[in-house]
């Protein structure tokens, strides 16, 4: 297929395809982040991705694998630690988020042989998307979408009222774990495009924008995906033409849409 090959040979199209794949799952997952007030939690996981990268270099495993494993371990640690109630959850999150980021940076500095583009990891890189990355993104997206469709009713119910869900026999704790696995996966694959510091923005801003117009949870996820597409498409185009960093450009576009929808919707409501 010469056309597909031509597209995949072009780094801009690879980045765009990858970005759209990420937005496809960032929409519904972002809705859960917003509904369950997990924004800071998502941030903590994303920050720990840098530690995952450092560890991957240290023990020579693929970056994606290292990031996913680190995120999952951190997520489980968070759940267990927050049960003890010695520290408030946001304090705990703050400690772990920044410590993970700092340990990651310090570890990387100990490895002079490893050449890492730190700015690219932190803020995303348009040029970094490889064909392998595309496989990871679409494989991960397929898995996440499949899980979401299968578990939708239970996930929604346990988000609306956890106790009621438990009484109705929904395995709330296991679902929480599955949700964290999905977050870890999306962070691992989104890292290349928007960078670890801005991943949460790609989760939250499209979902929050969608809330303004949504009439049902499903409607909100669809709108969030759509706004995610706009953010990725607009941001990467901006990055391509003006040579701005990819991640911040995507987030700036998402934020502009957010302002537009909230400003516009207020006018129509008044």
């Amino acid at each position, binding site marked *: 297929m010469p056309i597909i090959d031509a597209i995949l040979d072009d780094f801009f199209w690879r980045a765009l395809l990858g970005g759209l794949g990420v937005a496809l799952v960032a929409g519904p997952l972002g809705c859960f982040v*917003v*509904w*369950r*007030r997990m924004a800071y939690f998502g941030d903590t996981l994303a920050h720990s991705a840098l530690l995952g990268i450092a560890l991957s270099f240290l023990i020579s495993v693929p970056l994606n694998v290292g990031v996913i494993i680190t995120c999952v371990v951190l997520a489980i640690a968070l759940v267990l630690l927050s049960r003890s109630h010695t520290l408030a959850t946001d304090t705990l999150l703050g400690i772990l988020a920044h410590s993970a980021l700092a340990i990651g940076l310090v570890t990387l500095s100990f490895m002079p042989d490893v050449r890492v583009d730190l700015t690219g990891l932190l803020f995303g890189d348009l040029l970094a998307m490889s064909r392998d990355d595309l496989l990871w993104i679409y494989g991960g997206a397929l898995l996440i979408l499949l899980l979401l469709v299968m578990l939708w*009713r239970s996930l*929604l*119910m346990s*988000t*609306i*009222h956890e*106790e*009621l869900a*438990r*009484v*109705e026999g929904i395995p709330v704790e296991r679902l929480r774990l599955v949700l964290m696995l999905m977050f870890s996966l999306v962070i691992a694959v989104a890292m290349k495009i928007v960078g670890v510091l801005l991943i949460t923005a790609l989760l939250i801003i499209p*979902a*929050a924008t969608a*809330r303004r117009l*949504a*009439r*049902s*949870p499903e*409607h*909100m996820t669809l709108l969030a995906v759509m706004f995610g597409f706009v953010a990725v498409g607009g941001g990467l185009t901006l990055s391509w033409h003006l040579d701005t960093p990819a991640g911040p450009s995507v987030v700036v576009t998402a934020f502009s849409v957010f302002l537009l929808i909230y400003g516009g919707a207020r006018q129509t409501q008044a």
Partner: protein
Amino acid sequence: MPPMTEPLVSLDRVTITFDDRPVVDRVDLKVHRGDIITIIGPNGAGKTTLIKAVLGIQPVTEGAVKLARNLTVGYVPQHLILESTLPLTVRRFMALSGRPGSECQAALEKTGVGHLVDASIHHLSGGEKQRLLLARALARKPDLLVLDEPAQGVDINGQAALYDLIRQLRDQLHCGVIMISHDLHLVMAATDKVICLNQHICCSGYPADISHDPAFIETFGQPVAESLAVYHHHHNHRHDLHGDVVSGVVTDDNHQECDHAHH
């Protein structure tokens, strides 16, 4: 559906401790079909912990919670606090029970909120939310209905109507009901059996008797007990037009009459 005679739930010397502090202490309890059992007690008495044990979402430290086989439980939690970012209509919330739309609608009609099916849950009043939660529980066709302070956030007229509704539903569905309540006066009128919990069961029995119980007076204080005793004064006898006492004990089954005797 579980057989009629065996209890829906039986608690056998259930003890639940948090950090070695007993929150629920050796509680025995049986709920049969058709019972309305109300748990009252001061704050921190372990009421919510106890019903969570009944619901199977609170592990017990000692003792056993036995549920009848194939028991369907309908749970009405204290609140429905919905995150404002989550758009949800009454219809969608009911559909999440997994029951067909017609049954959901019927349940909504039963609790008197059928007209709100297309409303956003964010726009419902406290009373409407409680009725919605009740409908959500009814849609499951429960054998046992468990309610945690169902009248919270409901105005005083609404409270009486809500307890009335719970009693009607018990009659229609012939289910067992166990609830927590703070509305002592209303509970006394609407319930079959009251359990006064203060970690352990400090007294239990028919509403008319329990307000005279020394343990009840000790838990709730003399003024509360006295105000209830005045109220229940009318349960034991009635006055004729001259104010003389008419003999004849009014049994617990005649609550309606007791209410009339008030006026």
